[in-house]
């Protein structure tokens, strides 16, 4: 089933993860070539198989990014026989991943100790909102709560406004960190044959995003939210242009860049103005700078200006919406956006492998969202050696459901 030339060829994952963060992490591993067996059931299908009204999605998703490249099998884990089969999958896998609330895997009979009894060098990734241990470990949570608990939400916002809620990027950031941690554990196992239980708390990933502010806090400083401002760069902001809702992001790092910016935008006199000559002076006049830039950019086209400023070596980019992303030739060239289609799924763009490899280059999407249980012949039949009759009997007893 695995592609010939990927970095993670030969790695197999037993994937019990649900929601967004865990599935995103295993999806990354699968895009790099790991064989990922997703375990779910008709009674507890993954979120994308159901409507998601709070997000405004009133039907099941036809395509789901976080399930790409995954194989699907059904197991009704409320049945002891299903748990026994799950353990057989763990045994033939290199990595087991789960993202239930802390304690659920133990209750199912699939806790770390139980899995290590089956497979002495098991690697178990447990991804949860608040971790497997600690006074808050039973807390339920989603991405916006991770950001709130972790401090990132507090520090994000307009200086005179409330904190800001983090969305899926927070889940998925936890997923990247999970994929990294899994790779570290695999290297450790390869070197010393060690089992490992990775306890990843998504709220701690949010805290890792404010690691600098936490060092400050440990020395009695009280960092606060600063909006789009930067403490050593000015201008540094997001400015309106001639087109409605087309914003230009601009970060000017030093005096030479400031002078180039003033020239490029047709205001050479400002480049000579002593009020703006040094970074310190520009920071002192930050609000005036922002007003000036808003005025300069008010009759310019956003995309054209960004390209011109980039040619002059300046850090400028339009605040892109997803249509801009979808239309971008650079991202298409890199395969970061890639067209996918299948029966029942019209051609659309998805996010391909987020790193390019010179030698093991066959990374990326090769299968879309699996139908529930579509890979049981391979997984239960070929890998676990079950006969058709055995599988039919298990379906009859609602072990496979």
């Amino acid at each position, binding site marked *: 089933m695995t592609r010939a030339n990927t*970095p993670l*060829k030969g790695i197999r994952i037993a994937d019990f993860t649900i929601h967004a963060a865990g599935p995103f992490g295993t999806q*990354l591993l699968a895009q790099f070539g790991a064989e990922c067996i997703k375990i779910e059931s008709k009674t507890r299908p993954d979120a994308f198989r159901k409507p*998601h*009204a*709070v997000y405004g999605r009133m039907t099941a998703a036809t*395509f789901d*990014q976080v399930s790409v490249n995954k194989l699907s099998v059904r197991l009704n884990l409320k049945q002891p026989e299903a748990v026994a089969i799950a353990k057989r999958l763990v045994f033939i896998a290199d990595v087991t991943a789960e993202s239930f609330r802390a304690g659920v895997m133990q209750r199912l009979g699939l806790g*770390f100790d139980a899995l290590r009894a089956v497979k002495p060098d098991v690697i178990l990734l447990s991804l949860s909102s608040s971790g497997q241990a*600690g006074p*808050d470990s039973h807390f339920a*949570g*989603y991405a*916006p*709560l991770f950001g*709130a*608990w972790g*401090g*990132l*939400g*507090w*520090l*994000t*916002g307009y200086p005179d406004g*409330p904190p800001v*809620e983090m*969305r*899926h*990027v927070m889940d*998925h*950031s936890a997923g*990247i960190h999970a994929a990294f941690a899994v*790779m*570290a554990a695999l*290297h450790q196992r390869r070197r010393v044959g060690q089992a*490992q*239980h*990775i306890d990843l708390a998504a709220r*701690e990933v949010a805290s*890792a995003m404010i690691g600098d*502010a936490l*060092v400050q*806090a440990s020395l009695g*400083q009280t960092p606060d939210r*600063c*909006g*789009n401002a930067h403490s050593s760069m000015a201008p540094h902001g*997001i400015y309106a242009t001639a087109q409605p809702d087309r914003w230009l992001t601009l970060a000017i790092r030093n005096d030479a860049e400031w002078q180039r910016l003033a020239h490029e935008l047709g205001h050479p006199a400002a480049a000579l103005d002593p009020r703006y000559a040094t970074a310190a002076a520009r920071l002192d006049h930050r609000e005036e700078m922002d007003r000036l830039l808003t005025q300069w950019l008010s009759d310019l086209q956003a995309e054209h200006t960004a390209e011109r400023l980039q040619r002059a070596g300046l850090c400028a*980019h339009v605040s*892109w919406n*997803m249509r801009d992303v979808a239309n971008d030739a650079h991202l298409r060239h*890199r395969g*970061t956006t890639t067209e996918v289609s299948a029966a029942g799924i019209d051609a659309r*763009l*998805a996010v391909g492998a*987020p790193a*390019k*490899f*010179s*030698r093991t280059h066959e990374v990326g999407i090769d299968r879309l969202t699996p139908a529930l249980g579509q890979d049981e012949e391979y997984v239960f039949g070929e890998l676990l050696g079950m006969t058709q009759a055995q599988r039919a009997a298990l379906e009859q007893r609602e072990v496979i459901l």
Partner: protein
Amino acid sequence: MSALPLSGCRVVEHSRNVAASYAGRLLSTMGATVVLLEPPQGSPLRTAPPLLDDGQSALFAYLSAGKRSLVCDLASPDGQRLLEDELQRADILLDDTPIRDRPGLGLDPDLISERFAQLVHVSVLPFGSSGPKAGWDGEELNLLHAGGEGFLLPNGLSHELFPDRPPLKIYGHFAQYQGGAMAAFAALSAWWAVADGGQYVDVSVQDAVLSVGAFALQRLGDGSLEHRSTRRFRYGGVFEARGGFVELLTLEDRQWNALVELLGRPAWALDEALRDPLERSRRGDEINGHVREWMARHDVHDIVQRAQQLGVPAAKYRTPTEVLEGAHEKSRGLFAPLTLADGHPAQVLVAPFHFRCSPLPAAMQVPALGEMVAGSSS
């Protein structure tokens, strides 16, 4: 140290930006020896804000904890010899030198792969090292917006209060951290396959931001172009309570029922029609109006404590100090003592995950510039 996951792995890091530096930090914390090559005047990150009261960079302290520092002037023949020695012994090279500057500094990928066939060479650039915009430059602010997430911020209460303001960045270096975590993950993936040889890995911060923002591209494929004004939960979100802000989100029926309990079973919430989740979404503004009014009358700590008891997902927006002093974080050992480059003590977040069978470092050190003697083995 031999018990750490990446003990024995050797990494050379040549970084100016947060992304490559964070990749090195993740590898270092997992036990790799990470040698930070710095120019004689030190890495630009040593002076990057936020600064501590004595002028040291809190950002550099966080990012370099656990690394070694080797002064290496790549523009000089001595520096080139040093680079050669270090790469000879390295498993992984992390580099964020802009493409045009690479040949002059001995960092051309083709030449490196010829000389060091077993090396995993990871390039971490704002827009990657291939494609029509490979030469483009970007700071955090630009990259968060180039990847699509910036345009969607803020959503919820902030946008309701300030609908006409420009979009808003996430605090600090969120985009760069995604690029860094992706680079570290890709580095270990390429190293996994090193028995068949090293290779070049091209990581882009823009790609990483789009990757974590993939849901918005998925929504586009479903026919919806997301916008910060409409990308909000139909009900729930940020609420101002007495003494702080609360995040509240109920996605499942049982959580909604528990919320009704938390609110004291008010008449409006007992409306039969609101038992239907689709109806609740349609009447989200009305629900939020009631919740907002209730929150404003109650203490933030009481709300979140009782909410979690009842099974309502709710959290206080905590300040950095509250995170640092949190009982939960303390019991999990999230922070470790940190010795700054000048010897002063601080605290630092070790890693956002725990390895239960082999604990991560219990104390960390920020390297003074050039503390490592050239040619030493550790």
